[in-house]
């Protein structure tokens, strides 16, 4: 050993210094670390007056009033993960949507808006508000798949709500009852252009429509049905519900000016891509989401390790004695 140190004194000195630095580094990293403790096979959350309260104690206490609901929350999330894998695009969309919500709620809660939304999401069992939005998106995908797979539901819905995807062009007027010469001239030019057949509706709207927000997208407005009176002016909805797919309305007026609407599609696949369509669907069939979730669980072969948990989940989803969630229109359920 002595010989070794004599021969390699410099290496030994470097090694000792390095060891010293390492020991100091380890000490510095750990000096404020919270030590753990175990009791009765579980981690101790806290001790008080010499008694240990463990994570198991906490779990048992919370499970009494909320355990089955919590298990249901986790189950739904894992089922939704089979519907759609989380992609970067989905996460980014959820983050962007979260920012929009924060901006909206800031008018009521100021700087507290973000904290408020995070707390609401945590109360529902989510890690944060973005995760809540992500899973809301996946739930929409599941609901959409369910409706597409049950065409009989769509037929009844279409008959009642007259759903469609529409585009429009607007010739804006300050006072539609007293248009200026310039406004009238623009209207005439637009009418002639459309009647000429030279334009697709999208190109026509891009060139002539004064509704800048939709014109840039070829006049696309999106979803319209008999529930849309809360969203659009009466004249717009009244006229928009009349034509068949591929047809336009006559020119009509509203307080904004002169409109012409093109019905782009009445197909279920197109309509169901719009959130507004799903919202209308949920108005007609209140338990669609539950039916879709139970359907998926059945398909996946979900098994419960306790009867109580199974009963609780089935109750939450409205599963009947036949093991199904019956989808009925809301007014039938109310009548019962």
């Amino acid at each position, binding site marked *: 050993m002595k010989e*070794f140190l004599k021969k390699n004194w410099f290496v030994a000195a470097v*090694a000792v210094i390095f*060891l010293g630095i*390492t*020991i100091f*580094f*380890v000490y510095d*990293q*750990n000096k404020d*670390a*919270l*030590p*753990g*403790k175990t009791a*009765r*096979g*579980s*981690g*101790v*959350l*806290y*001790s*008080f*007056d*010499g008694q240990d*309260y*463990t*994570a*198991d104690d*906490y*779990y048992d*206490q*919370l*499970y009494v*009033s*909320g*355990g089955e609901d*919590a*298990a249901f*929350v*986790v*189950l739904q999330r*894992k*089922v939704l993960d*089979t519907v759609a894998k989380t992609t970067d695009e989905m996460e980014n969309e959820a983050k962007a949507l979260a920012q929009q919500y924060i901006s909206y709620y800031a008018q009521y809660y100021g700087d507290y808006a973000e904290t408020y939304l995070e707390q609401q999401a*945590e*109360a*529902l*069992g*989510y*890690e944060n508000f973005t995760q809540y939005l992500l899973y809301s998106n996946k739930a929409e995908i599941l609901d959409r798949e369910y409706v597409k797979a049950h065409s009989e539901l769509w037929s009844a819905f279409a008959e009642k709500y007259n759903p469609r995807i529409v585009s429009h062009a607007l010739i804006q007027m300050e006072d539609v009852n007293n248009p200026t010469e310039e406004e009238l001239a623009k209207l005439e030019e637009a009418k002639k252009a459309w009647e000429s057949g030279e334009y697709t509706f999208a190109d026509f709207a891009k060139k002539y429509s004064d509704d800048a927000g939709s014109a840039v997208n070829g006049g696309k407005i999106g979803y319209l049905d008999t529930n849309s009176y809360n969203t659009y002016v009466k004249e717009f909805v009244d006229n928009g519900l009349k034509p068949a797919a591929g047809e336009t309305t006559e020119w009509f007026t509203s307080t904004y000016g002169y409109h012409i609407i093109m019905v782009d599609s009445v197909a279920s696949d197109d309509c169901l891509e719009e959130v507004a369509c799903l919202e209308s669907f949920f108005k007609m069939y209140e338990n669609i989401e539950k039916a879709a979730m139970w359907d998926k*669980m059945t398909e*996946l*072969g*979900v*098994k*419960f*390790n*306790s009867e109580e*948990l199974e009963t609780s989940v089935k109750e939450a989803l409205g599963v009947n004695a036949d093991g199904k969630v019956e989808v009925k229109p809301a007014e039938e359920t109310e009548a019962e």
Partner: protein
Amino acid sequence: MKKYLIILVLALLALGGCKDATAKVSNANEALITFGNTKITKGEVYEVLNRQDGFSTVLSNVRFTILDKEVETTQEMENSAKEKLEADKETYGEDFESYIKYNGFLTEEDYLNKYLIPNEKTSALTDAYIDGNWENILVSYYPAQVEMIECDEKAKATDAVTRLNGGESMESIANDLSTKSNDLYDGKVHVVSAADSSTLNSYIMDFIKNSAEPGTSQVLENSAGDKFYLVRVVSKDALAFKQSAVESIKKASTLNNEMMAYYYKKYGFRTYDVSLRDYLRSYYPTYLNQ
């Protein structure tokens, strides 16, 4: 030799990555629900329950333990709690069941035993805490008997000083000159303390706090310059009006946390879970003594 040195260094570096502890449930991987290769485990359910609860149950548990150790449940407390129960049932009528369920109580008995009686005991505990820490409480909360008026013009306040110096009572002056925007500005004797600092102007509170003896303030002006105050400290001998002083101090929003911090320390509260520690650090830092 080299090999052992390398192993030692690597082991030390590994130790350097040690993190704060998290308390875990036993059998965290126990499956409660399964489908295919997917499990919903006890550990995952625990995470959700923890997130939803936000440690409010921990705080309740500790509070109940403190109350059990420090305060005996008396018949008087039970009777008072039962009276409040009946009053609440009358207030809410048919909605009483929904009301208690909304607040996390499954039954009427739950509401009585986990809310109303503990509230009675907390009031008794607060009285005992104030009594046991009287000198420190006096310094922190400086209860005083005072007479006060508020004027909306400086000339009125100056006039009030003249009349007071002439021997007129504050109450009489207040009837003529005080805005009486607050019950405390009626010129009558009231007991105030630091608990009133959110209601009363800071100059008033400073005057009361710094008055060692009875005396009258100069005209005090608020920061906006549109309100003028005259304050007369009648007595700072809190023992002479102890009951009123205690009632005033008990209104202080800081008192409950201060009291709980005292008992957390007394009973050696210690946490071994980083999330609980961080939660307490954010919201109740005085509860931590580690």
